[in-house]
């Protein structure tokens, strides 16, 4: 990683690093890591989703959708986050007129919606860095209050507008 050009003595957050972390920029490594995290999700899905053999086609479909989305994100002439591409691919493949959409949807029904997120949060908990714990201790309660108000504000703001229009 190249050193940041800014004069900051110790940046809180490195934008170069953010750039490097974009999964579509390193497709080979991402393909391997994606296999690893899909394995974790597949096993987590056993408890409240479906048995391993039944959920396997669904997990593979998800893997393929993600990779297609990342490749498009890499090649796209304009910027959209890779998550948006992945989302668009999976919408397209499950639209009523897409060939084989019923089969895809049926296979995916064996992958539990919440079980796929459980490992994500386990990774998140394990990946918190010393810097994040330290910043949390320092800036502490004021920012916690503000953050909760920020989250409440965006949620209630959107919900009220949508409620009035629906």
């Amino acid at each position, binding site marked *: 990683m190249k050193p940041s050009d800014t004069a900051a003595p110790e940046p809180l*957050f490195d934008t170069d690093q953010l750039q490097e972390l974009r999964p579509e920029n390193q497709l080979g490594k991402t393909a391997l890591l994606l296999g690893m995290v899909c394995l974790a999700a597949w096993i*987590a899905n056993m*408890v409240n989703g479906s048995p391993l053999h039944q959920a396997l086609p669904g997990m593979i479909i998800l893997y393929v959708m993600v990779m297609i989305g990342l490749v498009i994100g890499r090649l796209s002439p304009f910027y959209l986050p890779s998550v948006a591409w992945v989302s668009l691919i999976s919408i397209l493949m499950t639209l009523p007129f897409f060939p084989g*959409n019923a089969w895809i949807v049926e296979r995916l029904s064996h992958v539990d919606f919440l079980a796929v997120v459980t490992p994500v949060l386990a990774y998140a908990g394990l990946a918190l860095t010393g810097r994040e714990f330290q910043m949390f201790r320092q800036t502490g309660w004021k920012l916690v209050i503000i953050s909760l108000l920020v989250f409440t504000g965006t949620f209630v703001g959107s919900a009220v507008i949508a409620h009035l229009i629906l």
Partner: protein
Amino acid sequence: MDMKLLLNWRLHLTVILASLVAEWIGILRFPLGPGVLLLLPLFYAFVIGVLLNPHLFSGMDKVIPKRVSNAAGPLILISILPFIAKFGSTIGPAIEQIIAAGPALILQELGNLGTMLLALPVAVLVLRMGREAIGATYSIAREPNIAIISDRYGLRSPEGIGIMGVYVVGTMFGTLYFALMAGYIASLDIIDVRALAMACGVGSGSMVAACSGALVEAVPHMRDELLAFSGASNLLTYATGLYVSLFIALPVAEWLYKRLGGAALKEARHETL
């Protein structure tokens, strides 16, 4: 990305075991006043992850070395992708309903400006924060929003410190808070639960997952419809969020900050120093 650290077998095994325990505990419900608080498996997975984090208890260094934990950031981004794909697959089959709800879906994006309406006055008037308040409250502080602040003010600036603070709190507690809040508000039965589903789409994968997951548990018979709405709203936020926060939210935050007398307060503080 250091593959040797990212493919550390102890890290992935720990995640798998933590997930199995969390899934096995399952969903717990606690009545609170007029509503119900829902605890989802993703909560327990996060708590287990934090408790095993070597930066919190150095004894855990034996299970997962600190350098593995430091390198593991990219795995969060990658592991959310299969979920995003699963999420998208709820939108395709429901495309007709989504088009029917189009106007509500598009206009509720403006609700994302609600971040500052509630939080900025409190930050400036009650907590007496300076320009940190602008960075902290103009958006929900996810990666695209950080990029904007970094570009405009730099991350060592007060605005940068503000947004990084909310980013860190969001990373640590955002998911949990969204699930608790969404499940609870749904159980109060005041706002149309489809509107709540749209409000879940805030442009953060794990937050939208927790938020819509909690709604589905609160109103299980509307499962497919709710997931489709929150997924569509989230996608819309990914596509428009950057522009809304750059061209609308940030100027409005600057204006509101001046209106609230934030600048005057700060000068006064300098004089007393």
